[in-house]
């Protein structure tokens, strides 16, 4: 296994900063109300902007008349689709959106026109004065409907009815796998979609600064509550036809994202265009209802799964199908489709795996990435399905899982490279801490006691495992450039400024950069000044999605810091008359490891280095290694430089008279590698568990008569303090070889096992299966009544997921692939992994010093 270990000169512990529960660097600005969020920015002469949205789920636009709105005093600009006709979309393969509808609207809420006015009241009036004539078209509101009506096309461009994307893969020999099984089981599952519900609604402010000498006419700045300023920068520039050099996108404090602020949005583009037209700053702040309409939330997914196992529970083959309800536009949907299939083999070792996925367009707000992007749905299906198999075979669900766990430092059947993995330890920890064995042993006594006390509540415990990526292995648009870059500048006075495009959406990514740089340079984190998420000031980081920031920006930061440290140590060595390898940095000094009294202050070292080398600026960058995935088409979704692992046990009480489920406690063990800051990691685990709990029991983005049924946070339920269960976090695992100081992700993975753990616990409590998320009390009660009806009663049938029947073959060409393909490749560097060329000051192999790139930074 040693070939996997990238021996790297990681700074030796014990660490001074890493691993300490320090406050976040922005903690004091948020607790005092000083932190500035997009809607908090007010500029002189600022206008209020807003969007007119489609009232119809599907309609052709016959005409738009904006005259009355334009003539209203106080209205400075009105724009419609023809003013911004360029198509865009987050994925290069799904360029299917326009900022304002051209010809057609595809969901209730699709933007049709935008207005800028001097005050909010005038804005509202103006939006009402715009007259739009529609021809209403037939409406498709679900997967089955969309498949049944290929003639009603939501997008003209789709080749096959309303199928946006279909994929089909076979890894290993699936037939042989099922033939070798002693037992085969099939199940259908459904996972209702849901919204991110960040407490901050999306907002943005655009400012145009004219310059008549500039052929472009001026420069544009956009402040927006976005997780991905870099992608917004690209798309806004494209749609407005302004070169990227003339556009600056800044993400101020962001009030939560969870994936919902990862697309370029109509309101951002319109604010920019309105600002350009009026020459005045324009702010657009979305209402809560608009957040539900903008959506990009969890896809509703219907899933079919078939698994073959040996008598002892060893899996021989798995076949998985997913049908995604994509809503009206592409968004990240192609990636989501792949993600519903890609990670199954990363949790359990599957000797043969077939995955077929498809995404259809419907007349609903577009779905996109939400915490766990495309993986909570299959996680729910797989973990419940395995529980059923364990019950069928009479095997303990823990044993069944243990038989099949993936092994550290292995390669999955679909070609993904697995490195550090403490999945088994996660499992053991939650089982031990939750008292799982004792709880199950006491089942009969507990039930007898409930009956004796005539209590309607039955308790149950359920368990599930999961895995998640630490950053997508590939960028969203194809390129060879780094995924993250960090620049550091040292000031004569000893100040350290870190520049990075990474966007803190509350997860603490900015803080993590500060800790990492502080540790590496040996200074206090308070000394560090951070400039982040500003496309003009900061080098590119692809954004806060796919749990990539700690891993990728962290590694880039280490590289940049090491380059500077080397310069500092070289001058310090000279001054202290010591060989550089006897020096270390810490507590604001560069000192001799043999005699810490022999030391130079950080400031002195900086001044000496500046005198010697000139201005002290260095850059570091990171791109994931190349050899972490298979070589088939579509292999780009799923690979990651490392995977986090989690296990969850849920304790629930189910009221058999009301169907109400109360989650009393969640135990969550998470393999984060090295926690850069355990306080932040625990916060991510708790927040994920909370969100998983909400998805399991109450959250659903549902529609009625073509409209979002409940676009408010009163009717769309998110858990309050009185609902949220107690959460016990257990951090396990060893530092990852390639992670910054060994760190892995924690922001999304811990959500995944919570939902199936709760579903399995409900089964354990009352013996019924709800194969549909969310598990609402009406479904539970209905299932209970169906299971326990008295003779003579005619209860409703239990809730059941209706299978999707395809009349034709799977609409995608089957791609067959096996890991042997990798071994057969002629490229000599591809044994299992390739060592990228090690730049001399690169922190370790993973931080690629990509050969195409001129080395930025270093000494000036």
């Amino acid at each position, binding site marked *: 296994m040693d070939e996997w270990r990238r021996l790297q000169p990681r700074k030796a512990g014990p660490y001074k900063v890493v691993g300490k529960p320090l406050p976040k660097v922005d903690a004091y600005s948020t607790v005092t109300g000083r932190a500035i969020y997009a*809607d908090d920015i007010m500029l002189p002469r600022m206008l209020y902007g807003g969007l007119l*949205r489609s*009232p*119809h789920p599907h309609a052709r636009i016959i005409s738009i008349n904006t005259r009355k709105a334009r003539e209203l005093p106080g209205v400075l600009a009105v724009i419609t689709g023809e003013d911004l006709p360029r198509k865009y979309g987050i994925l290069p393969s799904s360029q299917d959106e326009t900022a304002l509808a051209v010809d057609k609207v595809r969901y*209730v809420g699709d933007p049709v026109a935008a207005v800028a006015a001097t005050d*909010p*009241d005038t804005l*509202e009036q103006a939006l009402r004065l715009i007259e739009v004539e529609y021809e209403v078209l037939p409406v498709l509101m679900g997967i089955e409907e969309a498949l049944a009506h290929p003639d009603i096309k939501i997008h003209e461009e789709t080749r096959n009815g309303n199928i946006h994307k279909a994929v089909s893969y076979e890894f290993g020999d699936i037939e042989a796998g099922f033939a070798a099984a002693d037992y085969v089981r099939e199940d259908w599952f459904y996972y209702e979609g849901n919204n991110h519900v960040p407490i901050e609604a999306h907002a943005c402010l655009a400012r145009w600064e004219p310059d008549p000498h500039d052929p472009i006419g001026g420069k544009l700045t956009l402040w927006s509550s976005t997780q991905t300023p870099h992608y917004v920068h690209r798309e806004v520039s494209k749609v407005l036809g302004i070169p990227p050099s003339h556009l600056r996108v800044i993400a101020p404090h962001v009030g939560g994202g969870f994936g919902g602020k990862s697309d370029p949005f109509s309101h951002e583009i319109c604010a920019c265009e309105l600002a350009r037209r009026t020459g005045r700053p324009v702010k657009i*702040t979305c*209402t*809560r*209802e608009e957040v539900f309409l903008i959506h990009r939330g969890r896809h509703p997914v219907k899933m079919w799964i078939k698994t073959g196992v040996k008598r002892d529970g060893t899996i021989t083959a798995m076949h998985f199908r997913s049908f995604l309800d994509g809503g009206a536009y592409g968004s990240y949907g192609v990636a989501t489709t792949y993600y519903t299939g890609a990670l199954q083999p990363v949790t359990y070792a599957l000797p043969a795996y077939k995955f077929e996925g498809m995404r259809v367009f419907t007349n609903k707000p577009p779905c996109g990435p939400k915490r766990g992007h495309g993986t909570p749905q299959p996680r729910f299906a797989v973990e419940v399905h395995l529980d059923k198999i364990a019950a069928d075979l009479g095997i303990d669900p823990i044993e069944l899982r243990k038989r099949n766990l993936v092994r550290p430092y292995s390669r999955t059947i679909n070609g993904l490279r697995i490195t550090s993995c403490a999945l088994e330890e996660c499992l053991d920890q939650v089982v031990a801490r939750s008292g799982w064995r004792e709880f199950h042993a006491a089942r009969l006594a507990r039930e007898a006691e409930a009956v004796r006390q005539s209590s309607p509540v039955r308790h149950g415990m359920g368990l599930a495992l999961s895995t998640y990526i630490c950053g997508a292995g590939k960028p969203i648009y194809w390129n060879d450039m780094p995924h993250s870059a960090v620049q550091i500048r040292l000031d004569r006075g000893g100040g350290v400024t870190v520049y990075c495009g990474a966007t803190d959406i509350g997860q603490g990514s900015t803080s993590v950069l500060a800790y990492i740089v502080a540790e590496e340079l040996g200074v206090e984190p308070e000394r560090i000044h951070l400039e982040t998420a500003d496309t003009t000031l900061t080098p590119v980081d692809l954004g806060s999605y796919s749990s990539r920031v700690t891993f990728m920006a962290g590694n880039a930061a280490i590289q940049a810091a090491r380059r500077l440290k080397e310069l500092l140590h070289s001058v310090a060595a000279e001054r202290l008359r010591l060989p550089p390898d006897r020096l270390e940095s810490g507590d604001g000094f560069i000192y001799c490891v043999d005699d810490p009294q022999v030391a130079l202050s950080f400031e002195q070292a900086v001044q000496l280095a500046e005198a010697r080398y000139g201005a002290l600026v260095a850059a570091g960058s990171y791109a994931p290694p190349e050899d972490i995935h298979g070589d088939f088409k579509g292999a780009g979704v799923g690979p990651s430089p490392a995977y986090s692992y989690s296990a969850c046990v849920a304790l629930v009480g189910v009221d058999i*008279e*009301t*169907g109400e489920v109360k989650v009393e406690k969640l135990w969550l063990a998470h393999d984060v590698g090295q926690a850069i800051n355990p306080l932040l990691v625990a916060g991510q685990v708790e927040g994920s568990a909370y969100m998983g709990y909400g998805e399991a029991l*109450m959250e659903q983005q549902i529609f009625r*008569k073509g*409209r*979002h*049924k*409940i*676009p*408010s946070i*009163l*009717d769309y*339920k998110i*858990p*309050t*303090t*009185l*609902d949220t269960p107690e959460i016990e976090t257990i951090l396990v695992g060893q530092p990852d070889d390639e992670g910054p100081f060994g760190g892995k992700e924690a922001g999304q993975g811990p959500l995944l096992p919570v939902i199936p753990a709760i579903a399995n616990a409900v089964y354990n409590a009352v013996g019924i299966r709800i194969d549909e998320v969310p598990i*609402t*009390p*009406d479904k539970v*009660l*209905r299932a209970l*009544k169906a299971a326990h009806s008295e003779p003579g009663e005619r209860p*409703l049938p239990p809730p059941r997921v209706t299978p999707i029947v395809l009349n034709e073959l799977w609409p995608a060409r089957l791609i067959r692939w096996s890991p042997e393909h990798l071994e057969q490749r002629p490229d000599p560097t591809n044994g299992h992994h390739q060592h990228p060329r090690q730049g001399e000051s690169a922190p370790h192999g993973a931080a690629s010093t990509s050969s195409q790139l001129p080395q930025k930074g270093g000494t000036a």
Partner: protein
Amino acid sequence: MLRLPPFRYLAPRTLGEATRLLAEEGPQAMPVAGGTDLLPNMKRRQFTPAVLIGLRHLRELKGISGSPEMGMRIGAGETLTSISNHPLICAHYPALALAAAAVSTPQLRNAGTIGGNILLDTRCNYYNQTEFWRHSIGYCMKRDGSICLVAPGSPRCWAISSADTAPVLVALQARVRLVSVRGEREIPIQELFYDDGMRPYTREADEILQEIWLPPALGWRSTYLKLRRRGSFDFPILGVAVALRREPDGRIGDARIALGAVASHPVEAEEAMARLRGQQPTPALLQEVATLAAKRARPLDNADLTITYRKQLTPVYVRRALDLLLEAEQGSGAE
């Protein structure tokens, strides 16, 4: 940002001035107390009054006085927080304290008044939507439209009476005093309600609800159970208020059961109440009573969760409320 429509704001200093202003301004004016129901409704353009008349500073609407022996008076302007914290109400009219404490959230209870709660607009999830949403679906008869979207063939509106305190005050047989320039009237609270989602109250547009009178509480026990999805914020999708008095021999002397959120007004379960009177409570009787009471619940598909579910839970909640009261009685008897 969702904002209010423009209006004029008047701040009378006395009840007399308030009723006069209300009469002068006519139906285009509305009183506002805590504003926690009216202002969200105005932001959604369910109401667009030209004038708001603030009741916040009226001394005549303040105060909680009296005693459980004599009965109590509660000013309509008292906040739900002060009612749920009031020691006499907690001890002797526990159903009211429970209902007030079950409303929405601490912040809303600090501002929301009992008068506003009693006169809460009826709710329906086709109606408690923004102007944009209602425009999109074509409006309904409760505001700006002509049909009912829940029951399209129906000539009436089925919006739901959703105030937590309303069924409790019915079960407690409270009376209310309404004041206008035309005079005052004091009526049993039942007479304040109509079974009509569009016009749920008999209050005239120029009347101000001044106070609530609770009858003496001696010998009565009461409780309130609320069905909702979350521990806070949510309106009831079922409210069960029960008040009982037992005879010294253990028989039930009198019982009142009122259901909230099952119709456009709080519903009294008369048949069930009659069945209980004069009886020794047994599990079988309580079950029967619960089933009888539940017959009065006719939910429609315009609130959270399914109709079947809300219907199925009514007898469970009624029985649980009765069990609670009778158990408590037994408990205290043993002391």
